[in-house]
C-alpha cells in the first residue's frame, strides 16, 4: 500500500481535519463579520463533504491499514453515524456562541468528530488514546465557549479536571495492556488472517486484567457510567443546550467504540472478574441514572441522568458482544451501535428543543420554564415530546427499536454461554428501569402540554435549529418504520469482530475463503508490525494464533441482499 491509497482511504478524516482548520481561520477573520458569519455554513459543508466521501469510498475491505490504523466496516459505520449526526449537531449549534467566537467553536466540533472517526480506525493503543482524547479536549473548549455565563466556565473546568484524571487512568490502563501484550498494536494483520494481541482467553494474567479494569474505568468516564458519572449532571446543566446535545453523543460514541476495540482485541473472552464488574456497573448505572433522574426539576439535569441510564442499557449490549451473522436482534455490538446512533439523535433533539426557545430572556432549563410551552410553540413542543417518548422507549419511535435490539441481544445468548443467566437478569433490570425512567420523561411531556402558560415564549436560534430539531424528530419515526438500513450497517460493522468468538456459519466461511483467495491474488503487503513478539507461555501462543477473517468486503454481498 502506498501513501496515495492511504490518503484516499482516509478522505473523510482529512476533509474534517482541513475543514476544521479552515473554519478556524474563517472564524478568526474578525475584521469583516461577513466572512466570520459564514463559519456555520462552512462547517456544515465540511461535514457533508466528509459524509459524501464516506459514502463514495464505501465499506473498507479491511486490507487498508495505515500505520496505527486499520480501516474496517466499523470505521465505515462510525463515519456514517458520527458525520450524519454531526450534520444535525452543526445545525443545532448554528447560532450558538456570540458571532466572533463561532469559528473556534465550530472547528472544535469538527475536531471532536474527527476524534471519533480516528477512534473507530485505531489499531494501536497509543492512537486509540490520542483519538479518544481528541474527542474530549475540544469538548472542554466547547463547554466554556458555549455561553457567557459563569456556570459554563465552571462546568468546563469541572469536566476538564475530571476528564484529565480519566485520561490518566486510561493511559495507565493502556500501559498495562502494552505490558501484557508486548506490543501496542491491537490486531496484527497477516495474510488473510488477523491476530488479536489481547486474546489471552482463559490464560489472561494479572497484568492484562489490571489493564482491562483501568481502561474500562477510564472509558467509563467518557460514556458516563457509574461511578464516573458524577460530572454529568453539573456539566450538562452548565453548558448551553446545543453543546449538551453533543456531549450526550460524541464522547459516548467514542467511549463505546474504544471499548469495542479493546474487547474485540480480547476477542470478547473477558475474565469473569471483568464480566462481573461490567455487569455491576451496568446495573448500578441504569438504576442510579433513573432514580436520580426522578428527583430532578431541571430538565437538563434530568436528561443528564437519562444519559447515564442509557449508558447502562448500552453496556448490556456491549457485554453480549458480537454474534455472527444475526443482525442487531442477536448481535450485541450491532445492537449497541444501532442504539448509540438512535440515542444520539433523540438526545440531540431533546436538547435542541430546549435551545429553541427563550423564556424571560434566558434559555429554558427547568420544568417550570417549560410549562405549557405547547400552547406557544406547538411544533417545537411536539418535536420535544417525540424525542422524549423515544428516549422512554415507547413505540412508534426509534428508541423503542433500540431497546428491542439491546434487550433481545441479551435474551438470545446461547444456552451454553457462561454468562447467559446474569445477562438475562441484567436485561430484566433494564426493562424495569425503562419503566422507572418513564416517570420523569412523562413529567417533561406533561409539563409541556398540561400546564398553563401566561407569559410569552420567544423562539431563538433561527431556522437552522428548527430544522435540526425537525430532522431529529422525523428521524425517530423514520428509523422506527424502516430500521433496516441502519441495522444492516450496524450488522456489517461487527463483521470484523465475528470470527473472534463465535463459530462462523457456512455462508460466512465461504466468504472468508473468497477473501483469502482475493488477498492471495492481491499479494497485499503486511502493514502490521513485523517485529511482533509473542510473550508468555506456549499456551498463550496457541491462544493468540486464533484467526479472524478480514472479511468485511467479502461479506458485504450476503448482508446487503436483504430485499423485502
Amino acid at each position: 500500500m502506498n501513501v496515495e491509497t492511504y490518503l484516499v482511504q482516509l478522505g473523510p478524516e482529512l476533509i474534517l481535519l482541513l475543514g476544521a482548520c479552515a473554519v478556524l481561520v474563517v472564524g478568526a477573520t474578525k475584521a469583516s463579520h461577513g466572512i466570520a458569519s459564514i463559519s456555520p455554513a462552512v462547517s456544515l459543508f465540511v461535514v457533508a463533504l466528509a459524509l459524501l466521501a464516506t459514502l463514495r469510498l464505501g465499506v473498507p475491505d479491511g486490507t487498508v491499514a495505515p500505520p496505527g490504523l486499520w480501516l474496517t466496516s466499523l470505521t465505515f459505520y462510525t463515519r456514517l453515524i458520527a458525520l450524519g449526526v454531526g450534520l444535525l449537531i452543526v445545525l443545532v449549534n448554528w447560532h450558538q456562541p456570540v458571532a466572533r467566537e463561532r469559528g473556534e467553536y465550530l472547528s472544535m466540533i469538527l475536531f471532536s468528530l474527527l476524534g471519533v472517526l480516528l477512534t473507530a480506525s485505531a489499531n494501536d493503543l497509543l492512537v486509540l488514546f490520542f483519538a479518544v482524547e481528541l474527542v474530549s479536549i475540544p469538548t472542554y473548549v466547547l463547554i466554556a465557549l458555549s455561553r457567557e455565563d459563569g456556570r459554563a466556565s465552571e462546568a468546563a473546568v469541572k469536566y476538564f479536571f475530571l476528564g484529565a484524571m480519566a485520561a490518566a487512568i486510561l493511559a495507565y490502563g493502556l500501559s498495562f495492556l502494552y505490558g501484557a501484550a508486548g506490543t501496542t498494536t491491537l490486531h496484527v494483520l497477516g495474510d488473510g488472517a488477523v491476530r488479536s494481541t489481547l486474546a489471552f482467553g482463559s490464560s489472561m494474567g494479572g497484568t492484562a486484567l489490571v489493564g482491562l479494569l483501568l481502561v474500562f474505568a477510564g472509558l467509563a468516564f467518557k460514556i458516563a457510567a457509574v461511578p464516573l458519572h458524577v460530572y454529568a449532571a453539573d456539566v450538562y446543566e452548565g453548558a448551553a443546550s446545543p453543546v449538551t446535545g453533543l456531549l450526550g453523543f460524541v464522547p459516548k460514541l467514542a467511549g463505546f467504540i474504544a471499548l469495542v476495540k479493546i474487547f474485540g482485541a480480547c476477542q470478547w473472552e473477558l475474565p469473569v472478574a471483568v464480566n462481573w464488574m461490567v455487569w455491576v456497573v451496568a446495573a448500578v448505572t441504569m438504576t442510579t441514572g433513573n432514580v436520580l433522574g426522578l428527583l430532578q426539576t431541571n430538565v437538563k439535569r434530568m436528561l443528564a441522568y437519562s444519559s447515564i441510564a442509557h449508558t447502562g442499557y448500552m453496556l448490556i449490549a456491549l457485554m453480549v458482544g458480537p454474534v455472527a451473522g444475526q443482525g442487531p436482534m442477536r448481535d450485541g455490538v450491532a445492537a449497541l451501535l444501532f442504539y448509540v446512533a438512535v440515542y444520539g439523535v433523540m438526545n440531540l433533539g431533546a436538547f435542541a428543543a430546549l435551545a429553541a426557545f427563550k423564556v424571560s430572556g434566558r434559555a429554558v432549563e427547568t420544568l417550570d420554564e417549560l410549562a405549557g410551552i405547547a400552547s406557544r410553540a406547538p411544533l417545537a413542543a411536539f418535536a420535544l415530546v417525540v424525542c422524549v417518548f423515544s428516549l422512554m422507549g415507547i413505540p412508534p419511535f426509534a428508541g423503542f427499536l433500540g431497546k428491542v435490539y439491546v434487550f433481545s441481544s441479551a435474551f438470545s445468548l446461547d444456552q451454553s454461554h457462561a454468562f447467559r443467566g446474569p445477562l438475562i437478569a441484567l436485561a430484566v433490570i433494564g426493562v424495569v428501569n425503562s419503566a422507572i425512567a418513564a416517570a420523569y420523561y412523562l413529567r417533561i411531556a406533561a409539563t409541556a402540554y398540561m400546564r398553563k402558560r401566561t407569559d410569552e415564549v420567544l423562539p431563538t436560534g433561527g431556522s437552522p435549529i428548527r430544522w435540526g430539531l425537525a430532522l431529529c424528530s422525523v428521524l425517530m419515526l423514520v428509523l422506527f418504520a424502516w430500521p433496516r438500513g441502519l441495522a444492516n450497517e450496524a450488522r456489517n460493522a461487527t463483521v470484523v469482530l465475528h470470527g473472534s468468538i463465535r463459530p462462523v456459519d457456512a455462508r460466512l466461511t465461504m466468504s472468508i475463503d473468497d477473501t483469502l483467495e482475493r488477498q492471495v491474488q492481491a499479494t497485499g503487503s503486511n502493514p502490521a508490525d513485523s517485529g511482533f513478539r509473542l510473550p508468555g507461555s506456549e499456551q498463550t501462543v496457541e491462544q493468540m494464533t486464533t484467526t479472524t477473517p478480514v472479511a468485511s468486503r467479502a461479506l458485504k454481498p450476503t448482508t446487503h441482499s436483504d430485499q423485502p
Partner: protein
Amino acid sequence: MDSWILTLVIFWPLAGALLLLIPRRGDDVAVRNGALFVSVFGFVLTVAAVVQFNRETAGGVSADGFALAAHVPWIVSGDQESATVDIAYRVGVDAISIWLLALTALLSPLAVWSSFTAIRTRVREYYILLLLLQVGLLGVFCARDLLLFYVFFEFTLIPLFFLIGIWGGSERRRAANKFFIYTLAGSVLTFAGIIYVACFAYGATGGTLTLNLATLTELGQGGDIPANVQWWLFLAFAAGFAIKVPLFPFHTWLPLAHTEAPTAGSVILAGVLLKLGTYGFCRLSIPILPDASFELAPVVAVVAIIGIIYTALAAWVQKDVKKLVAYSSVSHLGFCMLGLFSLKVAGVSGGVLYMVNHGLSTGALFLVIGCIYERYHTRNIDEFGGLARKMPWLAFFLVFFTLSSIGLPGLNGFVGEFLVLLGAATSAGTRDGLAPGPLGYGYVIPAALGIILSAVYMLWMCQRVLFGPLKEPPDTPDTSTGLTQDLTRREITILAPIALCCVVLGVYPAPVLNQFEVAIRQNILRSPASMMHTEIGPPDQGFFDVGVESSVSKQTLSTEFDAVVATGPGSRPALNDDPPSVSTVTTARLDGRNTPFETDASMATDSSATDVIGFNGGSGYER
C-alpha cells in the same frame, strides 16, 4: 395474497388526524365535523372489512384461520430465503378480532360525537388524539406479529395519557401519570417476555428469529415450549395484561383514570382499551402457553373471583357515579377472565362475547353519565334524585344499559355471562371435544354471587339517581352549551345504535357465537388432535352433545362447528349454510326459569338432545 382493507382500517384514522390539521386556527366546527366524518368513514371501512371477512370465511376458513391478511417486512435480517430475523407488519383477523374491531369502530364515532359540546378547549388536539388512539386500538386487534401487537398496545398509552391529562377532571395530571406508569410498568415485563419468545423461537424453529403469531401458536400448541419456560412467559405476559384488564389487585389505576378522563376517554377506555388485556390473554397467553395457562388457570380464576366480589362491594359504596361504573367494570371483567380461563369453547366464546358486551353496555353507561355530568357538573349520587321525571329519555337509556350490564335475559349481557358461567362450571367435562379444563362448579358459585351484587349496586344507583323525589344541584341543569333538559337528538342518536346492538346480541347471538367457536377451536384452544396427533374426524357431534364419552373416544370434534347456540324453534346451521352440519343439530329450548346450573343439568340428563340453547329473547323466558 395481501389484502389492503385492514391496513386501511387501521391507518385511516391516522390519515384523518392529519386531515384535521387543515382547518384554520379557531375553526372548531370544521374540526368537529371533520373528526366525525373521519370516524364515521372509519366505521364504514370496518363494515366493509367485516363483510369481506364474512365472504372470505364463508366457504371455509383459510389454513391458519385468518382472513384479510397482509404482510410487509419490517425488521428483517439475512437473505430472503434464509431470513434469520423475521419480524414484520403482519395483520389478519379471525372472528374474535373482527368483532372487537367492529366494536372499536362503532364506539369511535360515538365517542367523537359525544364530545361535541363537552370539549371546548384545544379542540383540534383533542380530536387528533382521539383518532390516534383509534389507530392503536384497531392495530392491536389486527396484529399478527407479536412485536407489532406490542407496538400498538403500547402506543395507545400516549394519546390516552394526553386525553386524560389535558381534558380530564381536577386531578387529571395525577390520573394520567398513574395510568401511564402503572400500565407501562406491567407491560415492560410483557416486552421482556416477547423478546424472550422471539429468541426462543430462534432455537425452536431452527434459526429464524420470528414473532409471527401463527408460528408461535404452532410452537405453543405443538408442545414445543417447555413447561418452565411457559411459566415464566405466562407471568411476564400476565404482568402487562393483568394490569390492563385490570385484575384485582392491580386495578387501582382504573377508577382514578375513569373518574378523571373526559367522557369520550372513559368510553374508549372502558369500551375497548381494557379489552386489550383480556384480548392479550386470549390471543397470546392461552394459545402460545397452553400448559402454563392450564396450570395457572385456577390461580387466575381465584384472583378474578376475588376481584369480582371485592370490586362489586367497592362499587356498592361509591358516591361518584362514574367511579361506581368504573368499579363495576373491573368486576365484570373478572367474569370475562373466568370465562377465558375455563379453557372450554363455551367459556372462551362467552368471555369474548363478554368483551364485546361490556364494551357496548359500559361504554354506553359512561356516555349516559357524561350526559348527566354535562348538565349538572357533578357526579355525586347524593346530589341527584328523581331525574326520571324531568329526563325520561335519559332514564330510559340509563335503566336499559344498567339492565344490559347486569345481565338481564334478552339483552346482550346475559348471553356472555351465561356462557362464561356455563364454561366455568362444565370446564372439567369434555363435552365440547376438548380436553378437560381446569375449573369447575366450585368457581361458579362465588362468581354467581358477583352477579347478584352487580344487580344490587347497579339498580340501587339507578334508583337513587332516577327515582324518588326530584333533587338537583343548584343552578342546574346547565343548558348554556345548547343542551336541552332531556337528552338532545344528538345524544339519543349516539345511544340508540348501542342499544340496538345490545338487543340484537341479546336476542340473536348465534351468528357471532358460531364464528367465535370456529376461531376458538382453530386459534385459541389446543385441540386434542394437535395434542395426540390424530386426524380430525368429520364433525358428527355437537358441542353440547351429551354423548361425551363416545365423542371423545372417537377422537372427533366438530371443527365445522355445529351450533353452540341456535335460536328459536328451528335450528340454525352453524357458520354458514353448509347443509351437512345441519343434520346433527336439533333444538332444545331453555326454560327461562332455569339457572345456568339447572340448564346444564337438564341437558346432561337429556341424552336425546343434542346441542343448542335457545336465546330467543322472547318466548323462552316469558314462561
